[in-house]
């Protein structure tokens, strides 16, 4: 067993060394670098490889769209914005190493990332010590924004979404016995704890709370167990890859109940993965593709024009993080330490995931829409 562990570490090191090398080469070969003299650099720390790479690529698409639009609109003080993307694999240890490289590079003005709360929070002290703004598109852990004066939260706090779902289940649907499944990481534990706390406060009996390993795809045992407990509803805190697998395997195990999800609302991928097993699930959405709000709609149209697929929440949050970064950079006059204070003076910010006011709170409060899946499409729940 000991030797097995050692080999895993070896392999991981080799993998990260190789992927790190690839990105350094890619960055030095990028055409903008060779041609444009006057640039402003934004560091981007995201999972480009590993289990969470797909989320990283959506966020990156969103950021890139915002930066392209900003560059077309004059960049920052007439300088083009250039992204320096590094792969953290959303591994907290890697995220710290990426942070150290970014702060050591004088050309980098601010940072956008990481994907998971765990990775963002691990890297936060490095950015804070260097006075560099860390703009986290997806960190929803309650502790994140309190880690320093340079931590910028884009996502609403997970707690608010979980409480919204718990009240929906208990008050509006009258569910009395609920089981929960959550991904065992900082985000999932928080999402589950907030749901369970609110559900219990509403008088709901919580039958079991099942943690699953990130990246796990075998849920036959856990859904069979939950089926035998005969719940009125099941709350699942998981992104679409796990969520799709849980729904498919629940259907196979004949677990028929009302599913609530946090982590995959509005995701077209979930519909592909789960097919008809996704019908009727309940989810709270921050971003939805059919939103008629002008900023949100403009984002959706630009994204579809560029990528030919509808964006999801991750791409939308990446876009909003990009917008906030540009606003901060334009107001900072090239000073690293001036970026975050400039962002926190923002009031009436409008993004693809709604509007909010950093002057009121550094934890954006956003409105949720009740959504569900009907006939293979995300629609409003009525």
């Amino acid at each position, binding site marked *: 067993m000991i030797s097995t562990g050692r080999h895993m570490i070896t*392999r991981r090191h080799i993998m990260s060394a190789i992927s790190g090398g690839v990105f350094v080469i890619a960055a030095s070969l990028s055409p903008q670098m060779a041609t444009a003299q006057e640039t402003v650099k934004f560091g981007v720390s995201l999972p480009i*490889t590993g289990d969470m790479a*797909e989320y990283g690529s959506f966020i990156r698409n969103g950021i890139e769209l915002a930066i392209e639009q900003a560059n077309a609109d004059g960049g920052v003080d007439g300088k083009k914005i250039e992204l320096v993307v590094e792969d953290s694999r959303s591994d907290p240890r890697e995220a710290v190493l990426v942070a150290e490289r970014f702060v050591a590079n004088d050309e980098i003005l601010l940072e956008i990332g990481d994907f998971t709360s765990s990775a963002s929070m691990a890297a936060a002290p490095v950015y804070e010590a260097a006075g560099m703004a860390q703009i986290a598109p997806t960190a929803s852990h309650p502790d994140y924004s309190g880690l320093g004066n340079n931590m910028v939260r884009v996502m609403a706090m997970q707690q608010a979404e979980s409480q919204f779902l718990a009240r929906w289940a208990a008050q509006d649907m009258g569910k009395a016995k609920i089981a929960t499944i959550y991904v065992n990481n900082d985000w999932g534990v928080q999402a589950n704890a907030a749901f369970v706390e609110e559900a219990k406060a509403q008088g709901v009996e919580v039958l079991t709370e*099942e943690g699953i390993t990130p990246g796990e795809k*075998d849920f036959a045992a856990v859904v069979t167990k939950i089926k035998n407990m005969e719940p009125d509803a099941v709350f699942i805190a998981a992104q679409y890859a796990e969520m*799709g697998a849980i729904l498919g395997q629940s259907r196979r195990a004949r677990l028929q109940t009302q599913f609530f999800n946090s982590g995959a609302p509005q995701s077209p991928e979930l519909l592909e*993965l789960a097919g008809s097993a996704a019908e009727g699930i309940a989810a709270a959405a921050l971003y939805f593709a059919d939103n008629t709000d002008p900023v949100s709609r403009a984002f959706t149209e630009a994204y579809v024009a560029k990528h030919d697929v509808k964006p999801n929440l991750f791409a939308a949050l990446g876009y909003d993080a990009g917008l906030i970064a540009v606003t901060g950079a334009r107001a900072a006059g090239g000073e690293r330490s001036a970026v975050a204070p400039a962002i926190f003076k923002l009031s009436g910010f409008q993004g693809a995931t709604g509007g909010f006011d950093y002057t009121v709170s550094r934890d954006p409060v956003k409105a949720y829409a009740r959504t569900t899946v009907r006939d293979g499409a995300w629609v409003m729940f009525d």
Partner: protein
Amino acid sequence: MFEQLINGLTQGSIYALLALGFTIIFGVLRMVTFAHGEVFMVGAYSGFVVFTHLQDSLVLAIVAAVVTTFLLGALMEIVAFRRLRDAPHFSSLLVTIGFSVVLTQLALLIFGAEVEAIPMRQIEGLAFSEIRIGEVYVSYLQLSVLGVAILIMAATFLFFKYSRLGTAIRATAQDHEAAMAMGVDVNRIFTVTFAFGSMMGGIAGVLIGFYYNLFYPTMGVMLGLKAFSAAVIGGLASMPGAIVAGLMIGVVEVFSVDFVNSSFRHLIAFVFMFAILLIRPQGLFGSGQLRGARGD
């Protein structure tokens, strides 16, 4: 209870198939391959490609995985391990790690990091069909996984016991110099064995890929680790050991979810394996008899 037992046996039969690959390769070539989980992934993707682009047939997907991973195994053996036969063990071990990285990155380049799934309209019938046994329903795919795994294992036993090639492989495993002296083409045996072991991984891959309808570049990592552990628990060179240990780990995992909590699933599985090794350091079926067969 019965449902959970079936869940455990299904999961366990995949561990067993993968562990069998480790065991066959170790038994003959005396080397551990850390690319096995990635070969498993290649098997899954080849089934996926055939199913989505050629014809939606599970049988054809399995055949595709068999052919691809057999050839891949043969290629890896001829290109790399043949040259390293007299090199220290760590060299070939490092090469297997290299192969695992190369295969993962290739999959990442070809298919991207996104989780791929067969479109539901193509697989809906297969995915959600079920068979009623008494009071409980068992899914058709679950039975297919179990059935194919048992079939492959039985065929492997018969192959090694009765076929000429199987006998030659067993002879080589016992003493490759003596086998060579008896006219066995040892190089060919090593290639075939590595290819055969890889093929077991490929079959496990296509089965699990269809069972969950999820295909992604890192799908073999955790399973590869568990299966390697199962092979060690089984005694590393024992085929029945690999199968029994694989099934046991599957069942232990499922019941640790049922009786305790899914958070503890991997913890309990590994503690269980650790406990077995404490009691029987040579593994369940390990006799130590094969050790030193090649003078090392």
